[in-house]
């Protein structure tokens, strides 16, 4: 699960990058960049969740 989250994060970055190329207008560009950051945030949340579950399994 941690690895899945970490794989999602670059996808969010590429979304932000795509916003620069696809949207010349400031409004849609900013919105799309924020969407990319939101995807990264979700990836981070999944990675953190994966860390918590792995730790729970290893508890003494």
């Amino acid at each position, binding site marked *: 699960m941690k690895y899945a989250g970490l794989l999602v994060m*670059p996808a969010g970055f590429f979304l932000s990058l795509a916003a620069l*190329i696809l949207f010349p207008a400031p409004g849609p560009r900013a919105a799309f960049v924020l969407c990319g950051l939101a995807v990264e945030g979700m990836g981070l949340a999944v990675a953190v969740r994966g860390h918590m579950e792995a730790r729970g399994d290893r508890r003494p």
Partner: protein
Amino acid sequence: MTPALTPALSDVAFAFILALLLLAPLAIAGVALINTGLGRSRSAAQALLGSVAIMAAAVIVFALVGSAWVGGAGHSFQLAGKSWNWLGASPFFLSGLGSASPQSQLGLLFELLAVAMAALIPWGSGMDRWRLMAGCAAAAVLAFAVFPLTAHWIWGGGWLSQLGINFGLGAGFLDGGGAATVHVLGGLSALAVVWIAGSRKGKFPKEGLATAMPGHNAVYVVFGCLLALVGWQAWNVAGAILWLHVAPGALAVTAVNTLLSAAAALAATFAVTQIRFGKPDASLCANGWLAGLVASSACAGLITPAEALLVGLVAGIVTPLMVELLELALSIDDPSGAITVHAAGGLWGLLAAGFFAPQPGQLVAQLVGIAALLGIVLPLVYLLFWLLNRAVPFRVDPDGERIGMDLHELGGGAYPEFVIHRDESYR
């Protein structure tokens, strides 16, 4: 080496920046002292020796190899009619440094200090269980690959610094004092270390709340804060000249903003811990102070004093709450608080630079930079550290953790005239 990006420096300006950069290592000394104080007494010598060894490893590797990938026209590709410069290309082993421009020489010194600090930050998060050799190897990996990439993108004429020219986003991604290249990189590396090395033994028992493992020397911690202030002011002012090209008349404001941000952050953390625990908490207040300094690294050269107060205030409120969240809710054992202080504090500073900068589009440029740090740097660091952990195991064996890193790795304690209690004696 970094290319000359500004008009030629006068001799006086060169000497002034050089003097600032000679003071900047005090910031590193402060962080090393804070980290040591926040760890256990039985690992104190290993923590401080590790800080020096990690700096040495990072600086050597960066000087020999990494610096070649920061400056120079470098490697780029064309996409959508724009040039994307992603990696620098200059001579290895610092060849030609003596004949380089004054800006390039000062830029290199700044980068050497920056890579030392970036490599040091995760050391605090891995305290009491991260082996010294593994820490040095991780520092070498950061200095070899990740720091040069990030520094080139931001300081070396890479694609993030060109966002203003290519896409009309303000002045491109701005990071005068190394909030991104040093602190966010270091903080995210700290997260990767904590994930890979795991938590300290007994930190998260099977039932109940996380065990409190307070730092062993609050005096080190608070004195480290004072040392860090001196270094940080020099660091931010030097960065403002080198990377933001701030006019000489505005340099005092940069130093004032650094101090105000730290002061506001301390006041906020003091108040939050007073309200939550009934008394101010020394280690959290130190973390708040440091978070204010980190946040100022991104924006001290760009904002007004009132805005610096606001930046520090937010950093100071968020820091103690986030330290608690990471430990109690997310099971992240970070003894020095580096993930909160450096990663979160740095990200907030970068965002604040976008909010308060006068140029249109600056906020989007900062957001794209943050996206690059979270989306590329964190997975890359985790991957590299995960591979490194296979070759040089990060975590000390259980016996080493029980007797303490000092005895296990160095053969002697930091405080030999005092009896260091064993875990069994706590019952």
